[in-house]
């Protein structure tokens, strides 16, 4: 634990939308009661004006910063959230909640359906990015916060933040979107579909009804391997693995692992199986594929509702959510006369850059939040 860590933290839960007040989802189906797992860091100030909601990426969770008791690893954005860090917990009250559809403490396909007493499985309704945002608004209301200083996130988290800015324009002062986009392209959908097929073609998947039985481990691992390829760049893979052989001096002339990159992907896949639910991967990837902020009238029109200031960060080698999509986003925000700063950071780490390039992001996020805080206090 470094000296700037927030220290030991715990995940809390909030349950709402119980019968008969279920949440009506984008699909028209109802979901309730809904549980959200969340963590908070720092202190909410007297006028409740220093709250920041951080959204996690596809397979992330509410544990963004600090350490769980006895854990070997800190939260997923611990390098960015803590005393003196980009999201300085000496100044800001930071909230992070697990999205619905996930398996990290919030309601999802692995949760127990109160009507049947069994896990939902595929009877869990398909949720969207908007549904995730709406459910987190309930949590923010529950915490007594009318207006967030900032919503922020990388990758899927960025999409959630952008969605918040157009859904609740009066409830946020600024948005930080990192390595994000505004809609999934055919290529992105195609990559997700291959990942889903990997899971659904595993005989253990059993139409999603595998809880308490053998889990579709091979399918899920394969889908994670595909994911990992898309998170890195050709350059970062070449630098890290090259053509290095694993545990052998020369090629084996068989189909065991020859190359280090093969064994790395296998390790990533296998370790993922222990921490993530296959059905959740289906639901969350679907939510991303369904997301198109520009639907219903074009992107410029969509952001006409927004009032926040924006900071949009992209990375040169990110081919999953390429910088040109961020540029289009910035163009639409600018067309609405909104305050927007953007940068394309030169980095070779691909989509993963947003978790790696911490120093560069700190140089942007800290002063950006400082300015917005100042502007908010002057109004």
């Amino acid at each position: 634990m470094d000296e700037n860590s927030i220290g030991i933290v715990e995940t809390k839960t909030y349950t709402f939308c119980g019968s008969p007040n279920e949440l009506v989802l984008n699909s028209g189906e109802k979901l309730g009661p809904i549980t959200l797992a969340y963590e908070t860091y720092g202190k909410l100030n007297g006028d409740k004006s220093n709250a920041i909601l951080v959204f996690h990426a596809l397979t992330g969770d509410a544990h963004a910063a600090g350490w769980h008791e006895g854990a070997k690893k800190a939260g997923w954005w611990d390098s960015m959230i803590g005393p003196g860090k980009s999201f300085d917990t000496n100044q800001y009250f930071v909230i992070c909640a697990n999205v619905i559809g996930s398996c990290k403490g919030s309601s999802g396909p692995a949760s127990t359906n109160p009507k049947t007493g069994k896990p939902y499985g595929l009877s869990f309704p398909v949720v969207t990015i908007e549904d995730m945002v709406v459910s987190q608004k309930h949590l923010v209301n529950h915490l007594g916060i009318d207006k967030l200083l900032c919503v922020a996130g990388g990758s899927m988290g960025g999409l959630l933040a952008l969605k918040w800015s157009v859904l609740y324009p009066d409830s946020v002062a600024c948005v930080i979107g990192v390595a994000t986009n505004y809609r999934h392209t055919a290529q992105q959908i195609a990559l997700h579909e291959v990942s889903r097929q990997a899971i659904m073609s595993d005989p253990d998947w059993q139409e999603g009804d595998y809880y308490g039985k053998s889990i579709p481990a091979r399918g899920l691992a394969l889908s994670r391997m595909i994911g990992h390829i898309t998170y890195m760049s050709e350059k970062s893979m070449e630098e890290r693995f090259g053509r290095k052989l694993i545990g052998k001096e020369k090629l084996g002339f068989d189909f065991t692992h020859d190359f280090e990159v093969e064994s790395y992907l296998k390790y990533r896949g296998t370790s993922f199986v222990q921490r993530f639910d296959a059905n959740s991967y289906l639901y969350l990837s679907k939510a991303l594929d369904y997301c198109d902020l520009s639907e219903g009238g074009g992107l410029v029109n969509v952001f006409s509702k927004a009032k926040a200031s924006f900071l949009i960060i992209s990375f040169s080698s990110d081919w999953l959510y390429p910088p040109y999509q961020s540029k289009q986003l910035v163009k639409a925000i600018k067309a609405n006369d909104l305050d927007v700063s953007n940068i394309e950071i030169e980095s070779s780490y691909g989509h993963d850059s947003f978790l790696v390039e911490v120093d560069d992001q700190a140089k942007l996020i800290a002063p950006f939040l400082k300015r917005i805080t100042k502007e908010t206090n002057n109004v």
Partner: protein
Amino acid sequence: MSNTPLTFKIISDMVKDKSRVLDLGCGDGGLLSLLIETKGCRGTGIEIDEKAIYQCVEKGLTVSHGDIDSDLSDFSDKRFDYVILNESLQQVLHPRQVILEALRVGKQVIVGIPNFCQLSSRIQLFFGGRAPITQELPDQWYNTPNLRFLSIKDFRAFCEEHNIKILRETGVSKNKIVRFRPNLFAHEGLFLLEK
């Protein structure tokens, strides 16, 4: 050089209080900061250099990492009171288009150019037979970021051809304003334009 207190002051004097400003090629944001602090302006910049973006954001500025040759189309007509092109015009690919675009998105445009026909440059060209190296144009032909080499007179002619009104013109040399024959004695020309 372009970012002297005098140049900044001349530009700042051209700008009315509390106006909306777009600085094209804003560098580290020095000029924008000055306009915001001393004139109460609202400002934003466009800059191509990644390192300069960090400096701008650290100063609390709004800045876009982009290319002024292509990104002006993002803005609607007369969105800004002033669009500033201080020492950046000579580095763009399509200066004519950039000036006309600047005049579209801005009510007025402020342009600062290094004067390629200042006396010392002429002497170096004429007697030395070499491309001039001066304080304002310090780079060799092979490493200069400048793509265009023009004089104050060239710029006046350009404005006339394109029906652009020059509302104010100031020649500057080494922290002094040059009133007598600026095309010969000024290292730099500053213009306030309107169309």
